[in-house]
């Protein structure tokens, strides 16, 4: 169908808004500042912690989230639990963090695990809870889109319910699952509020990149900016890798 080019005029303001953070990052970029940031003591432990915790969180999100998504995708009665997926999306992350702090506090319902608070494990917990909805929502949509008949064919050819899920459903849903993983991972890397409340801001323990940027910003804005560019580059790289992988899955 022909489309009315005037719509572009109305779309441009949104394009500009979305491009604004990237422009800000690129504008603040200079080799001198980058080398300054390079020698800053905070960035290496924070980057390593961010990579480590976000990947562990992603592993939890995928292994625990996929069965839940498969249930939500298949069983109409599971709709009663759908709202739980949306809870971490609509709650402010700081509220999630505070709630976790209460749950794992000495007086909390899981008070016996109070050692968890202000630890690296708490970082992973916060990231997992906040990032999981992004993966689960994408996974439910992708799993629902798998043709029921293709699954039945796999069953008729001798696969058990689980066998058909692994050999047919997962590969068919892969592009959607990969997109969901990308979103969830990006959310985990960017996690700030919930982490700060339940895990604190301890270098080497719970100070991930966003927290390090926040800490450095108070003393040196330009170093914070360089760290931000590093983090943004990492996130974009991961996004592109997943897009590429998903695109390959779709083609084959």
């Amino acid at each position: 169908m022909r489309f009315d080019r005037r719509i572009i005029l109305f779309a441009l303001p949104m394009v500009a808004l979305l491009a604004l953070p990237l422009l800000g990052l690129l504008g603040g970029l200079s080799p001198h500042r980058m080398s300054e940031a390079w020698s800053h003591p905070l960035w290496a432990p924070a980057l390593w912690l961010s990579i480590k915790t976000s990947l562990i969180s992603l592993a939890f999100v995928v292994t625990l989230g996929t069965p839940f998504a498969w249930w939500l995708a298949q069983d109409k009665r599971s709709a009663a639990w759908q709202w739980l997926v949306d809870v971490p999306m609509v709650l402010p992350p700081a509220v999630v963090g505070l709630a976790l702090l209460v749950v794992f506090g000495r007086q909390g319902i899981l008070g016996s695990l109070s050692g968890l608070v202000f630890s690296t494990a708490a970082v992973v917990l916060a990231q997992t809870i906040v990032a999981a909805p992004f993966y689960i929502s994408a996974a439910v949509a992708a799993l629902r889109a798998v043709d029921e008949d293709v699954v039945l064919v796999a069953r008729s050819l001798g696969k058990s319910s689980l066998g058909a899920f692994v050999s047919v459903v997962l590969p068919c849903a892969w592009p959607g699952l990969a997109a969901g993983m990308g979103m969830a991972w990006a959310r985990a890397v960017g996690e700030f509020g919930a982490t700060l409340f339940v895990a604190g801001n301890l270098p080497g323990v719970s100070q991930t990149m966003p927290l390090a940027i926040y800490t450095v910003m108070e003393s040196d804005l330009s170093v914070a900016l360089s760290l931000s560019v590093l983090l943004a580059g990492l996130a974009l790289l991961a996004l592109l890798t997943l897009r590429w992988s998903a695109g390959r899955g779709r083609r084959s």
Partner: protein
Amino acid sequence: MSWSARILYERPEFILDVELESEHSVVALIGPNGAGKTTLLRALLGAYPLSVGHLTIDGSACFDADQGLDLAPEERRIAYVPQGFGLFEHLRVIDNVAFGLGRSSLARDQAQNRLDQLGIGQLAARYPHQLSGGQQQQVALARALVCEPSLLLLDEPFSALDVTTKRALRQSLPADLRAKGLSSVIVSHDRRDLEPFDPYVYAIEDGAVVQRGTLAQLEQAPETAFVREFVGL
């Protein structure tokens, strides 16, 4: 080979209640859209938990609600070629055909042999989306038959094909099935697709059988407006 079934599938908005018997080796299901034909095929495969009914193939029961017997789809030895063929898009042709045979290299050899017999051995390394409609149908049939099922279910096997391919397969498919002595159930909305199979026809409307008989019998005394239109009167 003989088989018989009673399927009662109840949903709030739809009830399917049908008894089938293999009077001929090919049973055809006809009926308007939404009559329940595809649902019936899926129910025969064991896709739904049913509380009433039975399915017996060659004297052995796959499903008998009275006796609490309900074999899973993978235990029924029923092959299925859905509308659009249901090929596994992420697998090469050879792995599609070998799917039901396991992962051994023997399975792949057997699949390759089957493709060679069909004259499409050169397609083994391709992916389904790289095939024509006719080739996809051949691969889907090869995949279904390689496990030597006792019953074959075909949902609109010709609807996705162009006219030339359709004409060729209308001749070859009935001959193949006859040569194998395999019982089958075919859903179709086109009388010309069914004629070469000489089927016993069940006309289904709103989840119930409204008329049964050979095509000639249906033609002589069509009992509903749909059947009359189907036989071309």
